[in-house]
């Protein structure tokens, strides 16, 4: 064969023109690459398999159910880790535990001192302070550990005391209560006087 002879045209039949013409533009009807078609067929097969596995056979839980299960698992973990906030004695125990008290002091110093002052003495220390004294035995919204916890976690909205538990979580809320209680004695005589501090 002559070495300079042109090899034959790549596609032995001429491509067919489609019958339509838009703005004078016509197009060829070319065969799509097989690899391209195979990805399409593969996607269809995948869709059917996915649909069967997830929706019909239930071999794998649907994504929504997976999320629900994971959320339930997290909720259960949280519940198992949660602290018994109905038991006054537990709070008193924590108030003597330096780990809880130190953690509570840190949270208190970053969030509570603008109103209650670093000394925790509030209005007793400075009449211009916003928050009441937390070290004396006179309480406005109840002075048992349970009640203090409720005040911190749910807040006193009308007075500007924020509901802190949604902000900092239960653990930190409990630690702050432990820190406040560390300035008190179990069994000390407390009084509750509504609002004229």
């Amino acid at each position, binding site marked *: 064969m002559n070495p300079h002879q042109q*090899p*034959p*045209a790549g596609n032995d039949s001429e491509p067919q023109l489609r019958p339509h013409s838009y703005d004078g533009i016509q197009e060829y009807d070319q065969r799509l690459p097989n690899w391209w078609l195979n990805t399409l067929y593969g996607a269809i097969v995948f869709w059917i398999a996915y649909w069967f596995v997830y929706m019909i056979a239930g071999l794998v839980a649907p994504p929504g159910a997976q999320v629900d299960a994971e959320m339930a698992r997290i909720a259960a973990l949280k519940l198992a880790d949660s602290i018994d906030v109905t038991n006054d004695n537990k709070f008193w125990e924590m108030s003597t535990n330096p780990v809880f008290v130190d953690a509570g002091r840190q949270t208190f110093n970053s969030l509570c001192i603008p109103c209650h002052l670093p000394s925790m003495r509030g209005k007793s220390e400075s009449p*211009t302070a916003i928050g009441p004294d937390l070290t004396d035995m006179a309480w406005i919204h109840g002075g048992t550990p349970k009640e203090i916890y409720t005040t911190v976690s749910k807040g006193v909205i009308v007075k500007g005391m924020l509901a802190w538990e949604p902000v900092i979580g239960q653990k930190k809320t409990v630690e702050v209560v432990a820190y406040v209680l560390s300035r008190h004695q179990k069994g000390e005589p407390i009084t509750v006087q509504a609002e004229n501090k």
Partner: protein
Amino acid sequence: MSEDPRPAPPRPTRDTPHRPVRDSVTTINTDGSRYFLYPADARGWFLSARRLSAYVLIAVYLLLPWVPVNGHPAVFLDVAERRFHFLGYTLAAQDSWLLFFGVSGLGFALFFLTALFGRLWCGWACPQTVFLDHVYRRIERWIEGDAPARRALKLAPMSGAKFARRLFKHTLYILASLAITHLFLAYFVSLPELWLFMHETPGEHWSAFLFVFIAAGLLYFNFAWFREQLCIVICPYGRLQSALTDDHTLVIGYDARRGEPRGKLRHDGTEDLPRAAAHQATVFAPPPATTGDCIACNRCVQVCPTGIDIRHGLQLECIGCAACIDACDEVMIKVRRPTGLIRYDSLAGLSGGVTRWIRPRIILYGVLLAVGATVAIWSFSTVKPANFLVYRMSGAAYFVGSEEVRDQFMVRIVNKRTVPATFLVSTEGVPAGIRQTGFAGPVTLAPMAELVSPLVLLVDREHYNGPFKFSVKVTDAARTFALTREVEFMGPDPRLLHEDDEERKHPAKKKGDAHD
């Protein structure tokens, strides 16, 4: 028929050389199967330059995770910590809006360069071309030989030797793919972390393992088999470029005016002398022959990695690799004709006109690039080392006490730097007689730490004149930057407050006031 001594030309099959036509993609046969190319070697100035550019790019890619700048790898996209280090410059997740300017700036730069120089990116800088031409094809060339040898090996029946060569080649392909993907992962997890991953079982870091496994598999598939199909069928930039170029854009083209009509080189040498003389003189004088300069040697087709015939004109498959320029120049020198029958030129230049470099398109893209680059430089250079937010505490908007009106805010500061930083928070534009609690002194934040703390403002009743706007400002200790947020001090209508005060002072007057 029996009188014709020549055998009938064989029907084209998937494995015989095809003649490229303009209406179809050479690498896709009429039955949809793949026509695998065996591009021949081209040697010349452009190959050397491209190889140099590719080696520099590969070296940069391989070295960036290794070179420390300011205590971090030169490029380290720390996804786990959401800190992104670029040559000693650290960005936080809060700065991700900059990505818009980075990407759009890059886009405008590509617009501009494409309108001027065509598919320079594809042929010289695209990772697909860089790795394919300068890593994978080099491996293939080294193991399986030149184009005819590779085609012969493909057609040869399977044998021990063929299998061994193929196995060796694919092993090297896989090793190269693994090296590229491991380095890629190092951009995101850093090298020490990657080293740790590699020493532990895949189960410990199954997501990283899966990523490398799948990415290396895709690279291997792409570079071993898919190759030019990515550029022709998949790459959106390749398609987009058709809309960015015009008749004055630099492309690789064939000078049909000089080359046509093609004619076989005559071996009697009759044409050699005048052409040699023309070659000596730099200006080409048309030869007295009836044929053009193209000797129809098909060398430009043989070297093309996308299987086109550049003599058909500009085609979408062309990635601008310049292999055909090198091939044609080599032949032209051999036949003592001027080089540049195939060259970088605009379509206007190739058809005898003059390339206009400055055109409306260039000006438009240039302006877009200038605007984009200016905004990008401005935004990158003014990134603050902290994130700062002031918001009202939940609950009531304001509190009225016996002495004062009180507004409560939360201030959130994020130290975006990798060193501890001290911040000062102050208020600006507050009226006299206001008191502030919280943020009395400077606060120090650990690297990348976040602080949320209350800021409470109180105005004495007698000084209270109604709601007002003020700003909260944060600076660092050295005052190298400042961020301010405007917030509103909210409160009741001062008249109501003063009426209330009057009532409290003079309870008896209450009735009289009511009648007023």
